[in-house]
């Protein structure tokens, strides 16, 4: 059996509301070229290397422009999750206290395990209050939450060093005025998986927490063709997002209105006015998320869920639990710019039908 054969058989996808999406067409169109021209080691003296170096520098300019960092600050990581350790542990000093939110990513929790740390509680709105702290303390600041879309308050009163987790917000939000390390995930702009962008505002505030023998920030061997493809995806995505933002906001509001008026007992996380419009999480009382998701899939709609029955460890989403949002019957939608209004309309009707059927 060939992989290509298997891929073809599971081909025809449905309306995709999952957080993952196919590669952006702008990146896909250039993918062959990226592999043809960006294969060499850019540090060697050959023509092929110079060509790769030029492409990589052009890509860094694109990341710099859209992510609000300087091009010389752009570092690539083959494993975006490594950036949490690099950023947070790298900013810590002896005696540092790490402050992080109860709705941060689990990678932040893992880093916090090995440090003196304080988990900041959040209210029903998902917002944490940041302490002033001292200059040597570290704040893991999530620009926006990847499950609910909730945008965090600016960390302007925090006196210590700030690690910005922009893995969910990508190019959609500006960096705070003061930051020390930042992390992005290429998948958040329909770029390829397996690529993170890491940046330090100034090297002096940071000490490499990984075993190292040189001045490089990371020894991870990222794929240069994928980095180039990611830059093109970012450029394309930003254009799409600008063009479609109002429509996506409208879709988000329509979903909330529909849930409020058409399906009773639904717990919706956050408020569209304080969130990223393309993300939405809601939980339907007395509904088994696993059954709901399978039934939606049968009807051609792929959604995510933070319910325990849908997670690998059978634990409910720590984000929902920390906010006090119902954890069962949870549905998480990502409204990609490609989702059509009619598809959403049909989805909502199907959802209503299935919930009515399951509640009987």
């Amino acid at each position, binding site marked *: 059996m060939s992989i290509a054969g298997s891929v073809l058989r599971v081909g025809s996808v449905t309306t995709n509301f999952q957080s993952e999406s196919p590669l952006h067409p702008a990146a896909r169109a250039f993918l062959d070229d990226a592999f043809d021209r960006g294969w060499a080691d850019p540090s060697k003296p050959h023509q092929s290397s110079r060509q790769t170096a030029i492409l990589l520098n052009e890509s860094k300019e694109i990341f710099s422009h859209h992510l609000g960092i300087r091009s010389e600050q752009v570092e690539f990581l083959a494993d975006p999750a490594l950036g949490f350790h690099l950023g947070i542990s790298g900013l810590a000093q002896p005696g540092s206290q790490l402050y992080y939110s109860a709705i941060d990513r689990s990678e932040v929790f893992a880093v916090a395990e090995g440090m003196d740390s304080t988990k900041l509680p959040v209210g029903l709105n998902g917002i944490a209050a940041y302490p002033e702290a001292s200059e040597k303390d570290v704040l893991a600041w999530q620009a926006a939450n990847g499950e609910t879309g909730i945008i965090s308050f600016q960390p302007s009163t925090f006196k210590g060093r700030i690690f910005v987790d922009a893995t969910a917000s990508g190019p959609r939000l500006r960096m705070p005025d003061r930051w020390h390390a930042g992390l992005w995930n290429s998948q958040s702009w329909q770029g390829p998986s397996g690529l993170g962008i890491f940046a330090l505002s100034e090297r002096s505030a940071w000490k490499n927490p990984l075993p190292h023998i040189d001045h490089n920030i990371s020894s991870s061997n990222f794929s240069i063709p994928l980095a180039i493809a990611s830059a093109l995806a970012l450029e394309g995505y930003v254009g799409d997002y600008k063009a479609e933002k109002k429509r996506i906001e409208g879709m988000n509001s329509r979903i909330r209105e529909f849930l409020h008026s058409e399906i009773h007992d639904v717990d919706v996380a956050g408020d569209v006015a304080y969130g990223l419009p393309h993300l939405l999480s809601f939980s339907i009382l007395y509904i088994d998320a696993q059954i709901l998701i399978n039934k939606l899939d049968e009807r051609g709609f792929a959604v995510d869920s933070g319910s325990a029955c849908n997670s690998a460890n059978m634990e*409910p989403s720590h984000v929902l639990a920390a906010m*006090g949002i119902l954890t*069962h019957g949870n549905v998480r939608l990502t409204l990609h710019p490609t989702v059509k209004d009619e598809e959403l309309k049909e989805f909502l009707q199907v959802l209503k039908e299935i919930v009515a059927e399951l509640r009987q």
Partner: protein
Amino acid sequence: MELNCLGMRCPLPIIKLAQQLKNTEEVTLLSDDPATLPDLTAWARMTGNTFTTLGEHRYLVKKL
């Protein structure tokens, strides 16, 4: 009245609890599902019912 939901996964404990509360004013719920505590909190906020934690996996739930 005691409702034993030990070993059951979400959303069963909350569904059984809601059914039970149709017939009675007060239920002691036994549940060891990790989603029960966060879900009881949300369910109480959504429905107006109240609960107190009596001990590990043990909750006293009162109807509004």
